[in-house]
């Protein structure tokens, strides 16, 4: 199997097509990060595309200090946060959340699970971007707190306090739904 380093080397030597290997390898992981941050909206694809283009442009600066995955995830999170700020500026955030398509949730859950999942997704989308980023990386993507701090370039203590705060907010927002069970 061709390694990331080999693909990058090939790109840098002029073989642009080698970059397709990187895109196909990390596409689903980056989709998950971005769509967890933004919801399943059309802008997510644009942010995804921009993530890979940005990485391609900075290939010559890539020294391999972090893995390709960490680097791409960092770009994806930053671009998603920018997109959220842009939405907020345009004052469309609330409208968009209500327009979000939640019908793509797999049907192998019971109705109550599905309802709970809807509510949880909705609540995550109501978190501030900085909290949403740690929830996405730690709870959805399953990165360790150390990896999360490395991706977001923030201290471990900040990751932990943001996680604690995010859980508190989620519990508050979901108090009625989870309290019933």
């Amino acid at each position, binding site marked *: 199997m061709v390694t990331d380093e080999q693909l990058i080397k090939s790109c840098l030597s002029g073989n*642009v*097509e080698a*970059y*397709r290997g990187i*895109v*196909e390898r990390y*596409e*689903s992981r980056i*989709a*998950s990060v*971005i*769509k*967890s941050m933004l919801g*399943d909206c059309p802008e*997510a*694809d644009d942010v*995804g*595309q921009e993530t*890979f*283009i940005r990485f*391609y442009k900075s290939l010559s600066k890539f020294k391999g200090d972090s893995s390709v995955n960490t680097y791409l995830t960092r770009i994806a999170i930053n671009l998603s946060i920018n997109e959220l700020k842009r939405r907020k500026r345009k004052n469309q955030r609330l409208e968009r959340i209500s327009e979000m398509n939640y019908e*793509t*949730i*797999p049907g192998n859950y019971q109705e109550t*699970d599905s309802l*709970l*999942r809807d509510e*949880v*997704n909705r609540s*995550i989308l109501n978190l501030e971007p900085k909290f949403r980023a740690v*929830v996405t990386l*730690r*709870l*959805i993507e*399953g990165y360790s*707190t150390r990896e999360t701090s490395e991706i977001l370039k923030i201290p471990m203590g900040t*990751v*932990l306090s943001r*996680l*604690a705060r995010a*859980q*508190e907010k*989620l*519990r508050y927002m*979901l*108090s009625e739904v*989870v*309290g019933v*069970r």
Partner: protein
Amino acid sequence: MKRIRKLLFRSFDDHMNKRDQDLLKKHLTFSDELKKEKAELELIRSVISKNEEYKFKPHFSDCVMSAIKEKSYQESYEETFFQSLIGLFKPVAIGAMVLLIVMMSYNIFQNKKVSFSNAVAIPEINVEVAFDPVLPLILE
């Protein structure tokens, strides 16, 4: 209680020391409210971790590759254009400077007097004349 709740929130992600672990455990044994809160947090976290698998639209990699190729072409075109501009700037600037020096030297040589007004061939006008209301009419 606030501290215990903080410990509970951190307990999922942080390695707590023995003292904090024991403290939380102790409170969890006798506080039903804390037990309920822990169960709710576990439920929320389990729902979040079972998040659906998202995907980009089909042919995503093709879109990225064509955007990259398009941008590379555009950038190489722009780069060539700016490089040629930069390349042209130097000889044009040097040529203009040489021409200016030749013209100023010629003017000074003709008038046989070294002064700025002679060099640029502008007649010296004193303040009184410059602000004379009749001057514009004469110039016209």
